[in-house]
């Protein structure tokens, strides 16, 4: 985990395609991840996130395109890649009938961690995962969050420069999730490149950059702030009111309003300039005889961003077709 001096790309994917029969799981995806960067993969289940990660770990062969990890072409030398990566699969895949320490020893042996260094590395992994005192507990008896942290411990035992984490926080309670992300940040701070997938949209906020993936396609990629701006093309206001329907209809015609949609018991209104809209919209609606309650700027959730970008993507593809 030596920090890189250059910002050289550790993961490079160009025009990656994976087909299972007629089904296209990965559809011409290109991106790259720099050293020490946390790249998030966002998307619903079945979007193709796991498939891309599995290709990058050498578990699946790509149908087309190029995938390079740590500068090594996966098609040429998958073993070379395997030595330099740590992987946490979506499904828990440590040995439940082995203890915490036995699992760590096993992976230490598999990755050929020198015997002299192994006790110290195991100590590090146990401390990092917060499993001190549980070294001799069978993994099956650990709660989900502990199991996931142990899995991360096993994945970093051999100090790989690149980590692939496939939905590491799925099924983990919120406090443990928070702690897990702290661990990922600590690793990235030391120069480890992390590619992590999640279907919790809010978790993208923890990533340096996030890639939105839907139906095998990379829809957008960028920092959370960039994604929000690009997706919305403006600023978002929350409007509370009694008569949702009429207000919605009126706002859609209002000047400076780009879009308006129902969000729970309120409206989300996309405007060019939030400050101006806050000042003008109540008067505009009052003139039409419509009363509204609170009107306030809100920061978009990445869920909003995702929905918008997917819709825009679909529209683009229809146009192209």
């Amino acid at each position: 985990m030596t920090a890189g001096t250059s910002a050289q790309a550790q993961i490079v994917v160009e025009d990656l395609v994976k087909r299972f029969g007629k089904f296209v799981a990965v559809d011409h995806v290109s991106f790259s991840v720099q050293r020490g960067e946390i790249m998030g993969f966002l998307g619903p289940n079945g979007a193709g996130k796991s498939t891309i990660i599995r290709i990058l770990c050498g578990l699946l062969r790509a149908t087309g395109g190029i995938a390079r990890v740590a500068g090594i072409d996966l098609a040429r030398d998958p073993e070379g890649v395997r030595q330099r990566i740590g992987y946490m699969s979506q499904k828990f895949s440590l040995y439940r009938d082995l203890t915490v320490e036995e699992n760590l020893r096993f992976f230490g042996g598999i990755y050929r961690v020198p015997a002299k260094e192994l006790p110290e590395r195991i100590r590090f992994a146990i401390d990092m995962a917060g499993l001190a005192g549980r070294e001799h507990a069978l993994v099956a008896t650990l709660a989900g969050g502990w199991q996931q942290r142990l899995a991360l411990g096993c994945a970093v035992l051999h100090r790989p420069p690149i980590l692939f984490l496939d939905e590491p926080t799925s099924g983990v309670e919120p406090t443990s999730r928070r702690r897990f992300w702290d661990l990922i940040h600590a690793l990235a701070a030391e120069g480890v490149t992390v590619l992590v997938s999640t279907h919790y949209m809010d978790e993208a906020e923890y990533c340096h950059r996030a890639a939105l993936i839907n139906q095998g396609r990379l829809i957008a990629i960028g920092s959370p702030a960039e994604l929000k701006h690009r997706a919305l093309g403006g600023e978002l206001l929350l409007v509370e009111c009694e008569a949702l329907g009429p207000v919605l209809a009126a706002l859609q015609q209002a000047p400076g309003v780009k879009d308006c949609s129902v969000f729970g018991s309120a409206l989300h209104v996309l405007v060019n300039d939030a400050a101006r809209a806050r000042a003008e919209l109540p008067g505009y609606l009052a003139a039409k005889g419509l009363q509204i309650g609170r009107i306030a700027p809100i920061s978009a959730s990445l869920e909003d961003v995702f929905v918008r970008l997917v819709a825009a993507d679909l529209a683009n593809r229809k146009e192209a077709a």
Partner: protein
Amino acid sequence: MRLQRVKAIAIKEVLQVWRDPRSLMVAMAMPFMQMFLLGYGISLDLKHIPVCTFDREGSQNSQDLLKRFAASRYFDVVRNVRDYAALTAAVDRADCKLAIVIPPDFSERLSNAGTTSVQAVLDATDDNTANIAYSYALAVVSGFSTDVQVSWSAQQGRVLAQIQPMTAQSRVWFNEDLDSRNFVIPGLVAVILALVGAQLTSLTLSREWERGTMELLISTPVKPSELMVGKLLPYLGLGWIDAAFCLVIAALWFAVPLRGTLFTLFVTTTLFLVVVLGIGYLISVLIRSQLGASQIALLVTMLPTNLLSGYVFPIDQMPAVVEKLTYLIYARYYVTIIKAIFLKGAGIPALATPIIFLLIYAAVVMLLAARAFRKALD
């Protein structure tokens, strides 16, 4: 191949087997039970064949003949009947396999015509038993016939030696009592090890697939050959224990004479275990579900080893095509080896041919298994 990885895998396997007492019990108890069940179940010897007699004459001569049946260790005279109806009934009820009927003019024709006949009624529902019983009966009757001839000649004042028929003196080697147990039991050890061994390893990879641990394992730099050796070593230990069980039962309980050395036994048994465990591992590579792998392992070991290994059914009496087929049955080589070690006291030089065949088998199976294992999910 890196020793550190092989060791890590072997230790992990040992821990997993150790923590699963149920499958450990099966691995230990199965050969134990099979040795006793099959060891007692399979006996090809016919002794104490039940016989009914119907003496229609009741003379000294006829009783002399019947006494020979009673005295033979192959026959038990269970009943003397007085009419045909009773005889038929006895055969029908399977009270006897063989009925001997002595005609009312037995002695008369013997002294006047010098020749006479005896009727043998056989229950041939099991033709093998009937054949053997018939030939034993023939032997008893011809023995009687010779004696009659000899005493008749003596009465005529002829020299005994002149009419003494030529006899072939046969000496049976290696299994002097022609006790079938002595050749069935060593073969049985081979069959049981073939069955149990393949079962042991056939689940080792499918378990990892089904529990989801394989996905992580194949993302590591572990090589297929390292995985194979690491996984086979602990089961070789288990196989040794099973083999020791079977061999001790064979030698001590069933008292099969062990004339070879323990060293020869150890070397050849280890080689056979490697083949058998390798077959199970190959199945494990090819079939990713535990149930499927276990079924296939049973299918490919059970019938061929039972029928074609030569442990009960002699290979040289098989049709030519089937006989060629037996060269593919790895158990046949170990059946040959272990019978020779037990009964002949054969050493390794005498067993070179079957040992070479087993070596080739082991190499091919290992190579196939290592090649067939792909570190990929699709």
